């Protein structure tokens, strides 16, 4: 089965608007899902500069799905649905 890929944007905008609090995902996700999910912090994904949507930051990508105003709970829910849980 293909791994689910999670990218937490740690660009300046996302970081200031809240991804600083999402860094716990980098430890939490491997603990919870083992090698089913790959998770990493990422340099700016460029999502905040589309139409000046900085107000919807922080962004997280779960495979191709973009999560706006991401929270730990939202990201975990997206991973669960990818894994068919």
């Amino acid at each position, binding site marked *: 089965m293909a791994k689910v890929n999670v990218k937490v944007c*740690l*660009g*300046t*905008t996302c*970081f*200031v*608007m*809240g991804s*600083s*609090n999402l*860094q*716990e995902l980098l430890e939490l996700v491997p603990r919870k899902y083992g090698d089913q999910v790959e998770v990493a912090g990422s*340099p*700016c994904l460029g999502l905040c*500069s589309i139409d000046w949507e*900085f*107000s919807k930051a922080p962004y997280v990508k779960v495979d191709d799905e973009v999560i706006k*105003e991401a*929270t730990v709970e939202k990201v975990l829910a997206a991973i669960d649905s990818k894994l068919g849980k």
Partner: protein
Amino acid sequence: MAINTPNKQTSHLKREILVRLIRAYLGENFEEDVRLIPYKMRPQGSEVPYRCCIHKERAILRDRVIASLGFDIEEAEDSELLSNLAKKALDRKEPEQHPLTLLQTACNECVPARIHVTDLCQGCVARPCESACRFGAIKVENGKSRIDHSKCKNCGLCAQVCPYQAITKIIVPCENACPVGAIAKDENGITHIDNEKCISCGKCVTACPFGAVHKKSQVLDILKNIKTGKKVIAMLAPSIMGQLPCTPKQLKQAILKLGFADVVEVAIGADITSANESAEFKERVIEGGAPFMTTSCCAAYNELVEKHIPEIKQYRSTTGTPAYYTAELMKKNNPDALTVFFSPCVAKRREAMQNPNIDFVISFEELGAWFVALNVQVAECEESEYEVESSAQARYYAVTGGVAQAVNAMLDEKDQAKPHIINGLDKTAIKDLKKFAKNGSCELGNLIEVMACPGGCLGGSNTINSYRQAVKQLTEYVNSSKDVKEVVKD
């Protein structure tokens, strides 16, 4: 004690407003763009995430913009246009004296603190609540306990003795968090901050779930001075290293991009503080026989001493804060320059007001918003060296225990201090400090380090990064720095 991590939703709102305000200033139509901020954030037909209707959402956003413009929300006239206030903000010569202001439209929704009997009350036979109450304020009527609020003193004894845990104490989060009783609701249910009592520790800012306590921002005053070509120097508190996703040297370059003329670490002042404070400790405690000495670098603690525990003043170190020495150096070398202290907390705004060498204060949140507004990617900046090197110990001032460690690093083996660390100022810590002052002794140590925020400055209410990550990043920087003995020479 919990770290003062800022609430995610309310910080998001406050930061979004700051970004929009800074963009408005840097754009073509400042006053009109400021007026439109609430409408841009809640455009026609948009969702209403928090309040009863879009009009109230916008009204509250308007009030938040007033604080970001640097004004008192309570004093602003309801009928005044934001565009007018924006103009006044640019005409202002000096920032306001007291750093906090309250958004009272949000406060109204809090229930005043009191004891409340829930539906879980069984109207039992034993009725320990009745016998525990010393004021005759609780009686069982129609099978349930009832409280007579005209008699109740909110002592909470009835809640403690109830076998069903059916009685609860309803708290107002800001009142509950304030260690000095400076914030309270009046008889009309409206919350006020008593500036005579407030020590600007910022605990109410973090505690309020509505984000109703605001700082009056000085960011416009800083922007304005940079725009008019003034030489403005950035002085970075040690706790800033680890707040943003970049190296300390990249951070310097990123701040230079905003238009600052120079960027220095306040850690250079911390090295002077360590040298002076260790000498003072040796003189007063080791040689002079004083029972103990307290540190003097936390601004909220210093205000606490002035306003609530004057009797401990004689035991407090007379050494200046790192910000004090850094600002003094900057003004001496650049008499025409303006200085801006980059701060993790609210309290440093008060210190700056009382120090003519510090012109303005900007919080880490405001700095972050500035980067967002200009789309500065800090991780992509070049590295820029700090001209004056600071020690590992000075850079570690930001973490609880760091100041005491630095003092001890400067003292000989035989003169070592025994530190007692106050990791966060709450009511218990204040009681302890009063006791030490009254008794003239402290059995727990002879150097009392006081940090108003649990975790130290990295736990300040204006920080961006989560505490653990920030400590990790800062520690890396500290570990790559020289020992204080190599940096500070007599």
